[in-house]
């Protein structure tokens, strides 16, 4: 009789242990957020002596930044293309900066409207992220030195600023 009770208890405890082992909770929450990701680091090409450009034709690489938003209409993307070097040799003449920001890839076809709805001023492009999902923005940047003057040799670096601002 006692042996049967022990056997029953042992069996029950085994089942209970199995049940506990199977129930491993994974908790999480989805909240409104924006994630800014550097997708591609840009590179300035120097196809002609007086120009540094991210254009492929000039041997450069356009930087690409990705914005992920969980919910629509919570954030605005603000992207600024460079207007100065953060690192360069001593430059005695002026540098003329040009640049544009455009939609490169989208996770939702309707996001292609961002290109027509974007607001541009100075070196800034603003886009209301009105659709949930991921948008890749391509930034084109070009620096021209003096009047057809060759850039001095050395290291050059400029910064693209990608901002995600709650609205």
């Amino acid at each position, binding site marked *: 009789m006692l042996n049967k009770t022990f056997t029953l208890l042992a069996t029950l405890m085994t089942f209970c242990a199995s049940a506990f082992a199977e129930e491993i909770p994974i908790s999480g929450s989805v909240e409104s957020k924006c994630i800014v990701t*550097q997708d591609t680091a840009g590179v300035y090409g120097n196809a002609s002596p007086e120009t540094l450009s991210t254009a492929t034709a000039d041997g450069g690489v356009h930087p690409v930044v990705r914005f992920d938003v969980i919910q629509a209409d919570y954030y605005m993307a603000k992207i600024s293309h460079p207007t100065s070097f953060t690192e360069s040799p001593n430059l005695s003449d002026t540098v003329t900066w040009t640049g544009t920001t455009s939609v490169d890839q989208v996770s939702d076809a309707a996001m292609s409207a961002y290109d027509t709805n974007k607001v541009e001023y100075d070196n800034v492009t603003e886009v209301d992220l009105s659709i949930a999902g991921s948008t890749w923005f391509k930034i084109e940047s070009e620096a021209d030195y003096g009047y057809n003057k060759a850039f001095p040799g050395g290291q050059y670096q400029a910064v693209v600023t990608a901002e995600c601002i709650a609205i």
Partner: protein
Amino acid sequence: MKYIIFLLTMMSGQALLAHDFTPTYPKLETTHQSGVLKASMKLFNKRDDIRYYRVGVYDSEWNKIPFIVSGGKTINVEYLDTKRFDVYIQESRRRDITYICTKSLTLQDGSTKSIMASRICSKVK
């Protein structure tokens, strides 16, 4: 389908250089110190090229508002680490405070690559 693509994108290994700052709309709470309010924020660093972020607090016109951050205004967050911190402001500036931002601090490493500075701003409503 678009949500699946989005989720796959979010979960994919491509997101190696991401900056994540929440909550979107922080609430100002009272503290044990009278006349001082705080907002609790969370910063997740998924940028392996960035170790430091600078906190900024602004009004609706992007004028700076004085504030104090637990641990300092420049925050060291290692790659794939999460840092929770409190932003303290004077209660008298409650109506002015609009944005709480974190901006990545980039180091000059001598390469010719165009690097990206990321800034995410939450809005106090």
